């Protein structure tokens, strides 16, 4: 009979520990959704900000034209100025 009461005490202690651990897991799980929602908002904002990335193609075209003009200008300077 004494063993049964010892087992009961052990079960009580185990129940307290188990409830504490489960409460910790539940609190951690509850803290994740607000963070995920915030990340989703930031991701949407980043995606909206990246709409201007397409302008880089125009910039690339302009850079190519500018380098071509610089090359022509350098060729003219090469002819116009004497070498050192």
């Amino acid at each position, binding site marked *: *009979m004494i063993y*049964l009461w010892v*087992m009961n005490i052990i079960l009580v202690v185990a129940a307290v520990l188990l409830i504490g651990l489960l409460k910790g897991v539940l609190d951690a799980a509850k803290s994740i*959704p607000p963070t995920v929602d915030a990340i989703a908002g930031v991701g949407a904002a*980043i995606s909206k900000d*990246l709409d201007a990335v397409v302008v880089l*193609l125009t910039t690339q075209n302009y850079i*190519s034209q500018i380098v071509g003009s610089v090359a022509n200008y350098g060729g003219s300077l*090469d002819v116009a100025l004497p070498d050192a």
Partner: protein
Amino acid sequence: METVFVAPIAFMSLAVFVMLVLITAIIAALALFLGATIVQLVKINRGLAIVIGAVGEIVAKTAPVNGVLDAINSNLVLGRNLLENLFLKKGGDDCGGLVESVFPGEGAKFLQRVGRRGPVVNTGTVYTRGVVILASLGRGAPIGAAHAKGPAVRDAQYSTTAASMLYPRPGGDPKARPKSPVVGSNAPQKYEATATPGVRPTLRDGSPAPEPSAAPDMPMGRSASPEPSGRVEIRQPDSAAAAPAPNRLNVKGKRPWER
């Protein structure tokens, strides 16, 4: 009712009953907390689904950035190399000093980057603008070799005087230079006056020029017969006609007054 709740206790001891109650409580707590955790995990899953959509958009929009930036960078590097090579070609040993004059402290770095060595003399400090222009125009002048070792060639008030001192005799010794040609009645070299403009009585070697031929020299490809046939005849050029006339001074044909 009393028989329903009292009966289990009557059939088992109190310790066993307490154990069963504890086990039941533990199972109930497990179910409660695990159920709540599952609900939170479902919420997390939904939130991550939204995040993944936004992240996918970010990835799609930033995918061409690397290629575009690489292309822009390569174009800019090409332009920089072109200008630097042109600068090295035109500036020569003074390129470091020119960079130093525009960007103080960058002349040595520029020389190190392009793989050159030598002292970096700030051209903007050493020379005035006029001296630099004259130095660039007069290649081989002593200013190109003196500025690296000697004192600064600079006169803040009389910079043009300093430049003229660098080139005391432009063109060499004035006595050795040929004089300017004299024109007019007192000219030392006089040309014969011509009474018949366009007719040259003597050739360049002094011999008398031959009389101009009366028959006009017909251009090649036309008939020289006085009787026109009414049709264009194409004849083969003969060697005698193709050879230049002895009195022919213009390779393109006789002059208009000689025809």
